[in-house]
Every structure is written in structure tokens, then in C-alpha cells.
């Protein structure tokens, strides 16, 4: 198989690990839950009602940003964060691929034990 084809297959199967890792935290998950309604929010808005400091919230937002789940947008003096659904789509696609693969594998098992 050509190197190009191999890397294309590998890319298709690339687990969106940074996205999974970024979501594997309660605080970040709650930030995503707040932002995925669609409305961009400021750090102050996101800090309000939590027991965390502004610095801590900012740190979590940076982790989400590096995974592409949120984007920072500047409006005047304030920094707002908005949700980007694309990385979540990637997770869905990945799980769909693994799921399809199981369908094929299990039909081979069926043939194997029923023959």
C-alpha cells in the first residue's frame, strides 16, 4: 500500500484525543454546557455562580480553546468565548466509524460460528 493511502487511512481513524481529554473534566464540561446554547460569554459571566476564581476559569477556557471546542473573540475591552460544534462532530464521526467497524467484525463472527 502506498504511503499516501496509509496516511489517509490513519487520518480517518485518528481518535480526537485532545477533544476527549478536554471534555474529561467537570468544570470544563459545565463551561461547554453554558456556551453551547450559542451565546458568546465573557470570563466574568462564566465565573459568576461558580466557586472558582477568574484565573482558574480562564485556564480551563484555554484548554477548551486549544482543543478547538471554544474560540476567544474580542469585543472592545472584553474577551468573549464562543462554542464551536465542529470538534464534537469529529467525536461523533469517530464513534460512528468504530461502530461501523464492529458491524462488519460481528457479521464475520456470525458467518464463522454458523457455518
Amino acid at each position: 500500500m502506498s504511503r499516501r493511502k496509509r496516511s489517509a487511512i490513519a487520518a480517518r481513524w485518528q481518535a480526537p484525543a485532545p477533544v476527549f481529554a478536554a471534555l474529561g473534566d467537570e468544570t470544563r464540561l459545565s463551561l461547554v454546557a453554558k456556551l453551547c446554547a450559542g451565546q458568546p460569554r465573557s470570563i466574568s459571566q462564566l465565573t459568576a455562580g461558580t466557586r472558582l476564581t477568574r484565573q482558574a476559569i480562564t485556564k480551563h477556557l484555554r484548554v477548551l480553546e486549544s482543543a478547538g471546542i471554544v474560540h476567544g473573540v474580542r469585543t472592545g475591552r472584553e474577551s468573549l468565548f464562543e462554542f464551536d460544534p465542529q470538534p464534537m462532530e469529529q467525536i461523533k464521526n469517530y464513534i460512528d466509524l468504530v461502530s461501523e467497524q464492529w458491524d462488519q467484525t460481528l457479521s464475520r463472527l456470525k458467518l464463522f460460528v454458523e457455518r
Partner: protein
Amino acid sequence: MNDRIEKRIELKAPVSRVWRALTDHREFGEWFRVRLEGPFVPGQVARGQITHPGYEHLKWEAVVQKIEPERLFSFTWHPYAIDPKMDYSQETPTLVEFRLEKTPTGTLLVLTESGFDKIPSNRRLEAFRMNDGGWAAQMKNIESHVAQKA
């Protein structure tokens, strides 16, 4: 959002036959398309070479978890970790479980793969139910989609 895959399949073969196909490493290798180096032993790494056409350059690896005769076979792995240049060891592995149940016509096999991320799915659904935005609807779609396929 669903972080687990579940498949149920009816097999017209006795439980003992299906159990052998799952846990005998040579038989497993035939339908799973992997040439394994040795038998499955709980707690140990099972290694082999993939034999699936187009993927023969890849190694296969899993850590065997449970072997409960004719009932449960499970292992952890990195699903389709097929980029030879990539280090998957830092990622949390997923858990694959094969459960067998006797039926009037043969065997019901329930396969689950779970742990695609570290978030318990009930906790996450709760988080996403807190808003009624577009993403919540998307979650519903994914749920029914995965359910249909199962």
C-alpha cells in the same frame, strides 16, 4: 451524546461454540482478522499482527481483562489505533465486553465498547440537558442514531 457502543446479535450456534470463537486465540484471529502470538490470559497483553486486507502492516494489541467461561470476555484496547507513528499509550483505553446469553435458537451476543472519554455518560447528558440550544438537539440525534445501529 453517547460514549458507548452497544450491539446485540443473534447467533444460530450454541453458547459453547461462540465462546470458543471468542476466546480461542486462533479462532478469534480468523474472524477478527488478526494473527495472535499466543492465548488470551486475564491481566496480560495479547499481541498480534493484523491480517485485514490493507492493514497488514499494523500491530494489534489489547489487555485481556475478564474471561468468565461462556459468559463474559473482555479486554481494553485503543480502538483502531492504526497510525504506526502515533503513541496511543497516553490515551485512556476503551473497554470491550462480549457477553453471551443462551436463547431458544442459539446465543445472544451483546457487545459493548465504553469509555470513549472519561465522562460518565449520565453526568454528561445532565450537563447538556441544562440548555435547550442546538447542541442539545444534536445530542438527541446522536443518541437515536447509535440506538438504531445497535
